[in-house]
């Protein structure tokens, strides 16, 4: 499905259904009872907690509430995460096969985006590419896992590369947003956010497929040192994420897994890449 974004087309990688009546009722009831004010910058605490638990099932490990920032959708996650770990005069490596949203977000202040050649079939960076000069010269590396274009994944042993990058002082931003659509995440490389001064960040949509999308709801899972910087930038950028979205999501989080699997098996929702 393609969403018209003015002069820019950002292609969505899956088809979703409308929000269920319980989540609507819950959002309405929260708004009616006065949840219409600014909330904490990184998100409503209960939503952050639910999000931490949820991301730990899909491409992230060891996330706790304080690692999580609730954003106004995937694009804001891309923007905050890449901007915090790049500088205007720096360079970020982004696979040539990726959703254009990442390059748009990362290049906004002039950071040079180096599009790295990908394996033709999978759209993933090959070992050669990962060891290439352009990647070595980059301060930050952005990856999609699974790829939003092909659905292919980096497997567990990808951590060897990640460790090498972090030893070199590089930052890595991994978009894990499509991982719930995989039949199993067992073999997938997962982002560990437990180290206090780590440098690997995961981003994505929260509880996808079931209609929270038009309200914009994304996450960033980051080590505490980076999370703190992202919260500061989010304060300046948008103060907090909208309460209608957060309270709808809180309800949705409880029943998401069952509804997601049911809807998927009935083909009401589908990933538009082969996973």
């Amino acid at each position, binding site marked *: 499905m393609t*969403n*018209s*974004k*003015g*002069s*820019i087309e*950002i292609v969505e990688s899956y088809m979703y259904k*409308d*929000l269920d*009546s319980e989540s*609507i009722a819950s*959002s*309405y009831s929260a*708004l*009616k009872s*006065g*949840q*219409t*004010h*600014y*909330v904490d*910058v990184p998100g409503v605490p209960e939503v952050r907690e639910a999000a931490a638990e949820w991301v730990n099932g899909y491409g992230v490990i060891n996330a706790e509430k304080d690692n999580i920032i609730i954003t*106004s*959708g*995937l*694009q*804001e996650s891309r*923007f905050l995460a890449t*901007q915090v770990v790049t500088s*205007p005069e720096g360079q970020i490596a982004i696979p040539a096969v990726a959703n254009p949203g990442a390059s*748009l*977000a990362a*290049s*906004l*202040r*002039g950071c040079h985006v180096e599009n790295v050649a990908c394996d033709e079939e999978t759209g993933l960076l090959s070992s050669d590419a990962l060891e290439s000069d352009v990647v070595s010269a980059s301060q930050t590396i952005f990856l999609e896992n699974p790829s939003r274009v092909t659905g292919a994944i980096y497997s567990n042993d990808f951590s060897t590369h990640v460790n090498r990058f972090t030893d070199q002082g590089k930052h890595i931003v991994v978009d894990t947003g499509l991982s719930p659509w995989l039949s199993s995440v067992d073999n997938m490389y997962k982002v560990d956010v437990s180290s206090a001064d780590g440098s690997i960040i995961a981003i994505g949509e929260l509880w996808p497929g079931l*209609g929270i*999308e*038009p*309200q*914009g709801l994304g996450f960033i899972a980051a080590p505490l040192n980076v999370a703190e910087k992202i919260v*500061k*930038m989010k*304060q*300046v*950028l*948008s*103060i*907090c*994420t*909208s*309460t*209608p*979205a957060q309270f*709808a999501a809180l309800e949705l989080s409880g029943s998401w897994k069952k509804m997601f699997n049911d809807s998927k098996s009935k083909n009401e929702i589908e990933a538009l890449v082969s996973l």
Partner: protein
Amino acid sequence: MSQQDKNTTKKKLTGTALFYSLIAKAKELDAIVLGRGDPDFDTPSNIVEAANRAMKTKDLRSSPVEGLFELRQAISDRVSKINNIDVDPNDGVVVTNGGQEAIMLMVLATTSAGDEMIVPEPNYSTYLDALAFAGGAKVGVPTVMENDFAVDPTLVEQAVSDRSTSVLLVSPNNPTASVIPTDTMETLVDIAAKNDLVVLADEIYDQFIYDGGVHCSPQSLASGKDRTLTLNAFSKAYAMTGWRLGWITGPAHLINKVKLLKASVSGPANVVSQYAGIEALTGPPDALEDMKARYHRRRKVVLDAFDSMGISYGMPQGGQFIFGDVSHLGVDSVELAAKILDEAHVLVYPGGAFAPDSKYYVRVTFLQPEAKLKEGLERMSKVLSKMSK
């Protein structure tokens, strides 16, 4: 944490970050909040009902990055009626995630590394954060209490250099509550035109003008029309801070840049909030009128309290707060705000966080019900009177 640690932490924080550390402390203490600009009113029920209807019945998938056409049309009608601004909803409006995102987008659209923005000070601190992010530099123009914090066009003109690209005009201003009169606005916009500057106009408090004052939008003036980006938002006027909904209007050549930036930064604003916004602008105005009447009364409560505490101020002509001079106490306002919070459990904002020259000022909002407002001011007064003994 030891007292010494606390003090070092406080000293390090400035601007927006300082406000947020005070907010966190106030929350811990369950303090009376006369600091943050969040109206105590909940969003009017007709707006909440519209959101519910939208969630149940509307196709929510259709918002382009610049916002639903129906909302942009309502914004275009609103600014035409209230601000005398003429914009085409097709290419003159972008809906944003609150006024805050609008600030970042306006600053990024007009500032490259090394560019200068002329900023009357004190001012809303997020502008400086956004400017720092964009790599731009602030050229401050002081405004002073003795002159009711009026913006002096001569000083603005003197601040122009060959690196200037924009001038910021926040009217009513936060934190000083000054309003730029029409004749001054005309002069300021002419200066901008003569020097080819973009005017960044922040009108988030345009509904709150007191004592028969008049609000003038630079974008409504002939020489401002093609060079002004105007920010406004639903947060303050409709008590919708949590919905994260605002807008920017401007000429197509600038709005196109803003739209592109919006797609890079976040994508369309929450579509449910957008439907709520349509109701806010097109539904009955009763709730807004009621809130305005209450703010008038509360403003008087704060002015009376300041008078009795010996706090001087420039006459506040707009907004939802008053900026008072506490220099007679001889204590830096960051320290004073911390003391009032610690001892009286009342949050007020230190002026120093808005501009270095305002370190002997505090900003007190009137965004609490009258009884609570009075209670907060009384508690504050007790702390102050102990200090002046």
